[in-house]
């Protein structure tokens, strides 16, 4: 990321308050994957595992009913450490144009959202981005919590 943009984002999102901080009792998550049955009512349409990417990523599309209407994009990055995950959070934010995205609580260790139509969070060393990809806009909050719960279980002490 460009140094100037990172500096802007760190200031804009008060990174000094959260970057590198996490619950020491949780262990790092490894081998996260989707089977397709995780999200009730949603069908896994596509999964691309980018194992060689840095950090490794899983990019998925899910649909409910007509895929041309209700479509969800869930991207997950598995980072090597908590600080690396927080770097990845900034990296994702560096590709979000809106200045209306805000930090939120009760999701992940650190989370950001735009209303209830986009959620971005880090849980331990994993970053998840949940957003709409179809013209019928859906509330992503319940989905984000399901994904977060999966991560919490995987990072249990």
């Amino acid at each position, binding site marked *: 990321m460009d140094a100037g943009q990172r500096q802007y984002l760190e200031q804009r999102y008060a990174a000094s308050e959260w970057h590198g901080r996490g619950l020491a009792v949780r262990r790092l998550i490894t081998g996260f994957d989707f089977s397709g049955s995780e999200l009730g009512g949603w069908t896994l349409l596509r999964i691309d595992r980018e194992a060689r990417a840095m950090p490794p990523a899983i990019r998925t599309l899910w649909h409910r009913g007509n895929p041309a209407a209700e479509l969800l994009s869930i991207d997950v990055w598995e980072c090597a450490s908590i600080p690396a995950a927080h770097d990845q959070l900034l990296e994702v934010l560096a*590709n979000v144009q809106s*200045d209306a995205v805000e930090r939120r609580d009760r999701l992940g260790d650190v989370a950001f959202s735009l209303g209830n139509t986009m959620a971005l969070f880090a849980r331990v060393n994993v970053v998840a981005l949940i*957003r709409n990809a179809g013209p019928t806009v859906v509330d992503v909050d319940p989905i984000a919590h399901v994904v977060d719960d999966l991560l919490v279980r995987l990072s249990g002490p």
Partner: protein
Amino acid sequence: MITVEAITFNHDPGAATHDALNIRRNASQTVNVPEWRRFVSINPEDSPAVYAVAATKGNQVTIMVSLRSTDPGMAFVEVRVEHHVKARAVNFVNGSTGAVAFELIDPPAAHGYVTIRDVTWHWEYRLGPHHAWHRFDTTRHRLYTVLAVPTAPWRQAPLNTQLPWTDVLDYACRWAEGAASADMAAALVTQAVYALGPSIVTYDCPGGGSSHYSFSDFDGTHFIERLRGGIGNGIYVNCSDCATIVASFANVLGCDLWQSRMGFGFGLNELLAIGSSVWQTACGWPGFSYHEVAWEAACTANDDVYDACLKVDGDRDPTGPPQVPLLPQDLGFGNPGDLLYRDRLASPAGRPNCNPQPGTRQRRFII
């Protein structure tokens, strides 16, 4: 009986001055040489060839053709495709000519502008100058003309995934049909991408204007799927997606654009985001954290931009109604007060933070 066995358009992978470019179909499929093979190549798209105007200018353009004869008494004939392939004599040895060079008449690139043409060639032979021509075979080809050898991310080094994709050329050449200059080609591509809204793509208001096709490589495979009516990565795009699409599709035509950012954190004038018919700051947000466009040269305030993501107000006062929609094409970025791109995009208060960031200049790898 005489038959055409094979035609090679790209017979010199090390150059594009007398023959076609090195190409592939997409990320996973190659274009095999010879491009046309008997019993294999049926439709024009089965036999693609790309010529570059600048590289072939003033040069003879040739193809390599292999012919076969089942008549043991036929040793020496003239062969041509009227209006397309110049007649020449060929010699059959044990029924085959091997690969022989034929010169193209009026090759596609000689016209000097972007084209895509499906051609049907009727091959003819005659026994000598005083004999009549006889049609013996028909071949079909898709011939693309681009302005110059494609620039990055596209490459000409053989056997790599960044060879120009015919899947991209199928759209880029149609969008920029007739363009005789790089600026015109880039402008037509910009117009075509913006016109994909709102049905094919639309600005990502629900996701905060996040990248769906360009983080961090250009997911050209799924964007083309979307263009063809499939799901792709969904309907939403942001500025980085649009900049990447414009630069990649224009550069395959021989343009020389970058994807580069401006910022960071600036207020906006009202605009028309791709897919929207409502004048407002993007999705009603106060401003952009960053913005990205297809940009010429060093991507500075002195260089021109192409922005398929939004229309700005093109009148004398871009800060409010009434608005005249202007799609930024070959528009100087400018400095505050120049009434160029910066002034039209950013609000007066936002302009000081809407600065070119040439350090972000890139051409995303296409996958």
